[in-house]
């Protein structure tokens, strides 16, 4: 249903980011604790060693999500996600995301989340696919934290 592909940070289309953000602003703001859009764009577009940006397309070829992060010590440190809807994210991050991260040599996904948000809940529940991801215990009760998920 969704096609994921690795893209260069410079290939992120900021007009699409604007569209995705404006269409899903409430959810994105809640999950990010209101990080300004400019900083989200900065995370998406910054060029850095071992940067891994992923573009998600739906069946019609429309871009419906971007993620940004870096691969460090066989783990994908994912700090930034802009998506058309929560459903798009949940579905696209199950098998397709798992597959592409494995292809990149990753053994773990490290999700940078705000405690108490829907994204935090999704990550601690192994993105709803305990056959693919195994969330490690995390004791954080407030603020930002990093959830470690083993790629099974």
């Amino acid at each position: 249903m969704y096609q994921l592909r690795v893209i260069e940070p410079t290939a992120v289309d900021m007009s699409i980011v604007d569209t995705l953000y404006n269409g899903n602003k409430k959810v994105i703001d809640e999950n990010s604790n209101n990080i300004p859009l400019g900083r989200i764009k900065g995370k998406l577009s910054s060029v850095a060693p071992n940067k891994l940006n992923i573009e998600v397309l739906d069946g019609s070829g429309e871009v419906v999500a971007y993620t940004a992060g870096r691969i460090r010590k066989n783990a994908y440190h994912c700090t930034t996600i802009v998506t058309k809807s929560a459903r798009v994210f949940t579905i696209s991050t199950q098998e397709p995301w798992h597959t592409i991260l494995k292809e990149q040599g990753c053994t773990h996904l490290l999700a940078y989340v705000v405690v108490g948000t829907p994204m935090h809940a999704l990550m601690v529940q192994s993105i709803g696919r305990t056959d693919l991801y195994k969330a490690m215990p995390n004791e954080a009760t407030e603020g930002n934290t990093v959830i470690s998920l083993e790629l099974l």
Partner: protein
Amino acid sequence: MSSGAIALVGASGSGSTNVSLMTVGFTESKEIDFYGFARQPWPVFSDEGTPEIGDLAPATVTVGGVNYSVYALNWSSTSGLKFVVLDDAQSLSVSSVTSIATSQGTYTLSGATFSSTNKSGSNYSQWLLTTEDNYFNFAEDAQTNVTFTAV
């Protein structure tokens, strides 16, 4: 004659240089990237909870023949360059260190905001330079020479 020679060196504005080897540290939060070197009591604050990053050897900058210990030399995506040295006598000024260079570029500190801060009974001199130029943008744990030019 010798004093004239000294005056000539001073007039040239070339300053003195010393070189340290940086092991580039990296850490991040949802919105900020940190690159470079930081140690207590001048940590960085990331979601990873790794306040001390990188290494610098020797962790000193030489000004007027005196070595000052460096506690922070890093760039962040929200604040730019931060450079902090221990300066108990508060003898340094914004122009004491004129530039800091890596193979990726040179920070000129004349435009930096300079301040003196007391932490735990010690005085530190701090240069903050607002810039989007990240000259520490190496892979994590990469090694690079850092050249300090001082008066």
